[in-house]
């Protein structure tokens, strides 16, 4: 293939990978604290709807973006209440949140279907966008994409090089040790859930503010579930999540292009590609390392001592 085809495809991979990246980073942060939040899909779509409605009513996309993050925080707080206060089952609570979120967004968003809202448009970065090949792939996007270039290293720094990050990881690895060290395990898990929810909400906002600028039902289209799988693919590392997200973004962009090019392949098969890849990736990464990289206490509630 020629550069003229590949470069735009890769640029599209970055763009369609971005919402998944936000959500994956959020889920990594939550899981690092030991909480499994399967509700990513629901949190994302609530973020997407919030962003759309705020942008539509205020005309301010930045405000809409932040509001989506806060909505994600609020939505995932439900998960926190169930799992941390009432020590409910994390899997069940997460699944319920996913269903609740998608249902709620469909219901509340019915009136907005087909409308368009102001959002973010591509801004070529001076100098950087002039670099051959890399320039058009990475530096000719909207500002929300550029933001994701900063988050993984910052999240890595926070987790590995700061005291709160150390405590958060301890809460996810071995809560008994954290408790013995005098830490408030559930407090750190709250941070994991709320911060993670914020990023998931941003991931949703990207879809309605930059990716489409309009509202349709089921806007997230399973991206939240892909994010959950990508966390395992990334071995819970923010840096690896970038590759995973762009890989999926690439597949999504490719199948759109293939459909547009009038290929003989049935479109349903093409639409299936990202999800088929999810399964393959999960199998391969489990094969290589299994769950050995997972936070040891992931999904395990800390029962209060009597």
């Amino acid at each position, binding site marked *: 293939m020629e550069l003229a085809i590949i470069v735009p495809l890769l640029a599209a991979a970055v763009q369609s990978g971005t919402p998944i990246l936000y959500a994956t980073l959020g889920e990594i942060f939550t899981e690092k604290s030991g909480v499994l939040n399967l509700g990513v899909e629901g949190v994302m779509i609530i973020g997407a709807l919030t962003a759309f409605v705020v942008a539509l009513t205020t005309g301010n996309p930045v405000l809409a973006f932040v509001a989506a993050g806060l909505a994600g925080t609020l939505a995932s707080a439900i998960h926190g209440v169930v799992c941390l206060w009432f020590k409910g089952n994390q899997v069940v609570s997460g699944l319920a949140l996913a269903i609740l979120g998608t249902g709620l967004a469909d219901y509340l968003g019915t009136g907005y279907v087909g409308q368009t809202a102001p959002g973010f448009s591509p801004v070529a970065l001076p100098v950087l966008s002039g670099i051959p090949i890399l320039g058009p792939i990475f530096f000719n996007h909207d500002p929300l994409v550029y933001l994701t270039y900063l988050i993984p290293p910052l999240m890595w720094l926070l987790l590995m090089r700061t*005291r709160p990050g*150390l405590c958060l990881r301890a809460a996810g*690895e*071995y809560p008994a040790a954290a408790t013995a*060290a*005098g*830490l408030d395990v559930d407090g750190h898990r709250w941070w994991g859930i709320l911060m993670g929810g914020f990023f998931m909400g941003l991931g949703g906002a990207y879809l309605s503010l930059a990716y489409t600028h309009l509202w349709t039902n089921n806007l997230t289209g399973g991206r939240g579930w892909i994010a959950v799988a990508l966390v395992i693919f990334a071995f819970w590392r923010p840096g690896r999540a970038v590759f995973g997200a762009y890989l999926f973004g690439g597949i999504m962009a490719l199948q759109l292009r293939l459909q547009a090019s009038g290929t003989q392949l049935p479109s349903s098969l093409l639409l299936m590609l990202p999800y088929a890849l999810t399964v393959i990736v999960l199998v391969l990464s489990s094969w290589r390392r299994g769950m050995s990289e997972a936070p040891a206490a992931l999904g395990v509630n800390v029962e209060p001592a009597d």
Partner: protein
Amino acid sequence: MTGQPPLIRLAGISKSFGDVHANRDITLDIEEGRILALLGENGAGKSTLMSILAGQLQPDSGTIFLQGSPIVLSTTDRAIGAGIGMVYQHFKLVEAMTVAENIQLGHAGGMWLSWPKIHEEVRDLAAQYGMKVDPAARIGSLSMGEKQQVEILKLLHRRSRILIFDEPTAVLTPHEAENLFATMKLMVGQGKAIVFISHKLEEVMAIADSIAILRRGEVVDRVAAAAVSSSAELAERMVGREVLLQVDRQPLEPRQIVLKAEQLDGAGLHAVDLELRQGEILGIVGVAGNGQKPLVEMICGLCPPPAGTIRLLGMEWRKFFADQQWDLALSYIPEDRQGLATCQGLDLLDNFLLTTRGGFVRGPWLQRALADEKAARLIRDFDIRPPNLQALAWQLSGGNLQKMVLAREFYRKPRLIVAEQPTQGLDIAATEDVWKLLLEAREQAGILLVTGDLAEAMALSDRIAVMFEGRIVATFSTDDGEYVARIPQMMAGLEPDV
């Protein structure tokens, strides 16, 4: 004593779990620059007491004084703040993190962590106490001895003044244990106070400055280590002599041999011979960890004897366990009645069926109605409370759960019973019930009673075998006064020279 108050004073500490008194009115001083050993059998209340001091449990009553002023240790955080640190028996280390990360955990300080600087600090601190650890190593790659050093470094790094060691040598090789003792000496030399929990007599003799002995939740003795002449004396103080309970035990005519072990070797045992007949109780006494556990596991079929032979009810070991009957055979009453004997989340009927289901099958079906009827009858006969088959096992108190286990096992009409610490943690009334039931069961069966409570062994056994370091030091009749008087010496490994 000088006028200065001790670093820590525990005054009148009591703690109960349900109807079990783990600690009863305990008063104890912990002094600077001294090693205090807490000696006692499993379940004597040592760990509960120290968990209270570490802020993990709250006492039901009593006060803790820090340098003369009362403090409330409501959280581990508070205890750490008061300078109290604990090296747990099961290390509280995050396996996936490095040594330095574990040491930093919970440490107050700035936002940013500069690992090169922290590594330097850790290395210096370790060197100061003669330890060698790589701060960048992952915990998962360390030996048990090294992990323990990390636990100690954690406390030293926080400048803890009172260090509690919960059975620290249980996981160490002899060489590592020596290193630990050297480190402990260095630490008290620097004015730290150490509490050393153990049931190993020699260690306590070797390292402690003063010794407190706990039994059934009470401090029964407090002595200066220098005043103790031998580990036999300690053993005697630890197991106790006073008779709390008396049961009427009439000797029966021993009948056929139900258990015969010859030259059992390996897994911690050395040339163990024993013989048990129907109609008698053979008490195995000794300080915990001297081979009782592997012996029980071999006899009960949990692990095969590496060397030597065991014959049960006249059958060879392999054959016996290959086609063991549900009834008229072996019943095991384990020490761990919550973990091994019952399923905590199942109700009493299902727990009853765990070992008796063989008696309620018809083809592929379980006759639950019949089981229900029989189990309900047992609950009445054994006075198990609550008298409700739908109650879940965890809802029962220790004594009632133990009676439930006995009721179930005796329903099988066993001909050989292995009872391990059958009254541990039970109150006097429940203990008496259990003792009576065991004596009744003796008519139909031979009973091997493994106990750390000498009074229990004396009250129930027809014969006693003393174990030390995997050997049976001597076997003798309970009526043989000369031998009985020397049980403490034998528990400390001395041959009976009578």
